[in-house]
C-alpha cells in the first residue's frame, strides 16, 4: 500500500527542464504536512518586535493557530502582543470595517503600542476589504505607524513572502537618521546573529549591530535603522527592504548569505569591510586558505557520493553548486520552493555537473517512496525518518546552522558530511536541526 516511487519519478522534471515554479510539480497531489503559509512568516517576524502588536484578521482557525504557535515554546512572542479580529459569516458578507474599528479602539486602550501590524489572511484577500485604507485611517486617528502585511496563502508555496512583506511594510516605521558606525542585519529568519562569526569580526572592528529584522528588535530600533552605515542581507527575503532603504535613505547593502564556498565568503567579507570603510582583518585570508584546504581534503573522502535535499538553512543553490563543484558530491533530487533569478548562476554551475530531479517541498508523506528508487547516500533537511533508516540513508545533521555565517558555514558543512560518512553514522538518521526552513 502506498505510492509508487518509480511512477512518481517518471513524472518528475529535472532542474534543466524547468524555468519557473509552475513547471515544478509536487511529488503528489495529496500533501502532508504541506507548506507553511505567509501568515506564519509574518508571525515569525513580528513576534520578535518589542512594543508592537500583531493583529491577525481572518477566520477563527487562522487566529487560533497563530496564538497557539506564539503562546509558548520556541516561537513564543516576547514583547509583542499577538491578537486577532475573527471574521464570521456576517463580516464576510458585509465587510469587517465596523469590527475592525472597535477592535482597534480596544487595542489602543489596552496595549498602547508603538507600532501595529495588521496581517491579512486568505479570506480577507478574497472578499477584498480595503485593509490598507483602514490602516491609513487608524494611523491618522491614533498617531502611530499602522502597517499592513498581506499574507494570503493561495499565491505562494511557502511562508517567506510573509517575512518579506513584513520587512517591506516596516519601512513606514523608519525615519531619516544621522549615519554612524553600525549595521543592520536583514533576512536572518531564524537563529541569532550575535552568535555568528561575522558578528564577532564586526564587533572586533568596533561596528555595532543596530537592528535585526527578523530578529530581536523593537519598534524604536526599526525607526532608527537608517542610522546604519550599511545593511547586511543574509537571505533574499531581506533584499527588497535593502533596496528600498538604499533608495529612500541612501543606505548601501551587502549581500552576505549563508554561503559554503570559502572564496565566496572571503569576497563577501571584503565587500562588507570596504563598504564600512575599514580594513579587512588579515586573519580572514588565512581562514579562507584553511577552509579551501579542508575542502580539498574532504573531497578525497566524499567524492562520488549522492544526496537528496529539502530546503536547508543555507543558501540552497550555492550550497548544491559547492557540493558538486568542489566536493564531487551530487544531488539526485532537490525539493525546492523557488527558482529566483538571483540564484540562477549557482544553478548553472550545478548543471555543469549533474541534472537533479526537482519537486516541490514539504511533502513528507510522499518522499519516503523515492528513497528505494533513488538510493542516495545522504539526506539533507527534513525527511521521513522511518523510511530513511529502512533504506540505510544517512541524514546529514548541520548542527547549529541557523547561528552560523562566514567561514564557519563551510566548516559546518564539511564536518556534517564527514560525520555522516562515518560507518556508524547510519545508526542515527535523525532530522538535521536547522534542515527545514
Amino acid at each position: 500500500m502506498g505510492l509508487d516511487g518509480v511512477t512518481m519519478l517518471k513524472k518528475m522534471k529535472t532542474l534543466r527542464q524547468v524555468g519557473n515554479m509552475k513547471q515544478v510539480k509536487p511529488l503528489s497531489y495529496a500533501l502532508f504536512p504541506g507548506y507553511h503559509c505567509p501568515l506564519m512568516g509574518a508571525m515569525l517576524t513580528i513576534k520578535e518586535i518589542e512594543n508592537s502588536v500583531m493583529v491577525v484578521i481572518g477566520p477563527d482557525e487562522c487566529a487560533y493557530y497563530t496564538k497557539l504557535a506564539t503562546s509558548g515554546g520556541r516561537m513564543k512572542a516576547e514583547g509583542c502582543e499577538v491578537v486577532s479580529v475573527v471574521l464570521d459569516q456576517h463580516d464576510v458578507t458585509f465587510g469587517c470595517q465596523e469590527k475592525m474599528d472597535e477592535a482597534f479602539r480596544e487595542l489602543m486602550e489596552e496595549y498602547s503600542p508603538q507600532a501595529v501590524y495588521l496581517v491579512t489572511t486568505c479570506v480577507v484577500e478574497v472578499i477584498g476589504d480595503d485593509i490598507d485604507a483602514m490602516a491609513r485611517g487608524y494611523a491618522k486617528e491614533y498617531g502611530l505607524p499602522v502597517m499592513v502585511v498581506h499574507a494570503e496563502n493561495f499565491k505562494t508555496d511557502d511562508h517567506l513572502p510573509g517575512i518579506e512583506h513584513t520587512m517591506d511594510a516596516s519601512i513606514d516605521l523608519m525615519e531619516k537618521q544621522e549615519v554612524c558606525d553600525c549595521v543592520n542585519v536583514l533576512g536572518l529568519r531564524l537563529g541569532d546573529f550575535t552568535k555568528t562569526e561575522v558578528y564577532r569580526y564586526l564587533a572586533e572592528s568596533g561596528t555595532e549591530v543596530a537592528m535585526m529584522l527578523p530578529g530581536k528588535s523593537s519598534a524604536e530600533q526599526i525607526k532608527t535603522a537608517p542610522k546604519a552605515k550599511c545593511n547586511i542581507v543574509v537571505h533574499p527575503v531581506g533584499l527588497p527592504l535593502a533596496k528600498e532603504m538604499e533608495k529612500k535613505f541612501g543606505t548601501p547593502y551587502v549581500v552576505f548569505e549563508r554561503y559554503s564556498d570559502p572564496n565566496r565568503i572571503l569576497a563577501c567579507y571584503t565587500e562588507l569591510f570596504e563598504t564600512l570603510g575599514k580594513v579587512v582583518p588579515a586573519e580572514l585570508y588565512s581562514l579562507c586558505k584553511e577552509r579551501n584546504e579542508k575542502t580539498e581534503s574532504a573531497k578525497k573522502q566524499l567524492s562520488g557520493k549522492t544526496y537528496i535535499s529539502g530546503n536547508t538553512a543555507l543558501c540552497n543553490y550555492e550550497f548544491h553548486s559547492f557540493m558538486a563543484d568542489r566536493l564531487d558530491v551530487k544531488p539526485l533530487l532537490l525539493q525546492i520552493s523557488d527558482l529566483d533569478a538571483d540564484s540562477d548562476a549557482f544553478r548553472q554551475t550545478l548543471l555543469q555537473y549533474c541534472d537533479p530531479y526537482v519537486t516541490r517541498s514539504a511533502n513528507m508523506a510522499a518522499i519516503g517512496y523515492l528513497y528505494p528508487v533513488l538510493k542516495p547516500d545522504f539526506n539533507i533537511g527534513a525527511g521521513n525518518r522511518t523510511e530513511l533508516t529502512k533504506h540505510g540513508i544517512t541524514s546529514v545533521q548541520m548542527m547549529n546552522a541557523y547561528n552560523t555565517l562566514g567561514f564557519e558555514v563551510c566548516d559546518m558543512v564539511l564536518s556534517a558530511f564527514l560525520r555522516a560518512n562515518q560507518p556508524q553514522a547510519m545508526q542515527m538518521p535523525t532530522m538535521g536541526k536547522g534542515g527545514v526552513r
Partner: protein
Amino acid sequence: MSLCRFYPSPSDRMAIIWSLMPIRDAVVLEYGPAGTTHFGGGLYSSLGIDLNKSLFTTHISEDDVVMGDVSRLEQAILEIDAAYHPKIIFVVAAAVIAVIGTDIEGVCQYMQEKVQARLISFEEGGFRGDYTYGLKSVYRMLVREVVKKTDKKEKTYNILGASAGSFRVRSDVWEIQNLMREAFGYECGYVMGLEGNVEDIESAGGAAINLVIRNEALEAAEQMKENCDVDYIYGAPYGYAGTLQWLEQIASVIGVSVNQELVARLKEKIRLITPMGGPPMMALMQRIPAKATIQGDYDTLLGFRAALAELSVTAENLVCSHSIKGIANCDAAVKYYAKEKERIALFRSIEEQWCLGSDEMERYCSEKDYFTTISAPFISKRQVGTHLPFMGEKGMDYLRELKSEFFDKFDI
C-alpha cells in the same frame, strides 16, 4: 466579538477534522491552502491524534480561487484512493473555499464512480458556528451515512460525544469503560469521534445502549434509536453519587443490576465525604464559603458542578466555552460571554475561589485563586496518561485531593 486577545473558540471545521482523523481506515483531505493544514497539524497532534496518513491537503493556487479549478482536488482523491485504499475519504473545505463557494459535494458526486473509497464532503468551512456545530455535524453524519442496522451484539455499548478537544477525554473514556466492565460486564464497541475504524462504526447499531456524554451527540443517539433501536442515556458520571446514579440509570435501561461490590464501595466513599449529616452541615463548618468558578463545555460544567457540590463547594460561575444557543432546556446558571473582554473581566474579579478551566482562565486568574485545568484550550499542558480521569470514581478521588489543597490554601 471584536478584539480577540486569547484563543477564539475553535470553529466547526476544526472539530470536524479532529473528530474524523481518529477513524483509522479513513482519510481526511482538506481542500484549501496548505498552511492551514500545516498549522493545524500542531493542534491535532497536541490532542493526541496520530497524523500518519490520516490528514492530507491539496493546497490551492490562484487558479483554484479565481477560475474555480478543482483538478487538484480530483487528482488528490484519485491518488489517495489508489495509494492508501481508505474506506472513506472525508473531503473538508477550507474557509476560503467556503467563501468562494466551490461545489465540493458536486465534485465528490462525480468522482465517486472513479474511486473505491466512499467520498463524504463537509462544506462548512468554519463559518457555520463554533466547534459544537462541528461535533454535531460529524456525529449526525456518521449515524446517517456509516452506521448500519446489524444484529444485536450482546453486552456491548457505544460512547457518543467523547471529543478529542476535551481535556483528559481519553482518561474519562478509560474510566467509563472500567465502570461498565465492573458494573455490568459490558464492553465498549465504539467511541464515536475518538477511536475505532469504519467497521466499528458500521457495527455500532448492534450495541445494547449508547452512553451520550455530551449534548451534541443527542441527535445522533436519537437517530440510532430510530434506525437501529439502540436505547441511550444522556449524562456523564461525575462525583461518587453522580456515578452511582448514572450506573443505576444504565441498569434500568439494560435490565441488569449494578455489581453490588461497586455499589457498596461508592456508597462508602459517599459516606466518607458527607460526615455530620452532609453538605449543609459541612458548609456551616467552613470559615469562608468554598466557592468555585468553572469554565468548560456545557456538559463539563454541569458535571463538575455536581461533583463539587458533593464536596460542599458551590459553583458560583459556570462559564461556557461555546455558544449555548442550540442547547435545549439550557441550565439557567450557565453563561456564555460572547465578548472576550467580559469573560476576562470576570476571571480577573475572582478571589479565593477554586477556578477550574482553561489556559485562558489560568492566565487571568490571580494568585489569590486555586486553579485546576479541566478544559480547552490547554496548550500549556501535556496529556500523557490515559488513566487520570475527572469522571467516575477515580476522577472523584482526584477531585477530593485537589479540594483538600484548595481548602488548605485558603484555610477554609
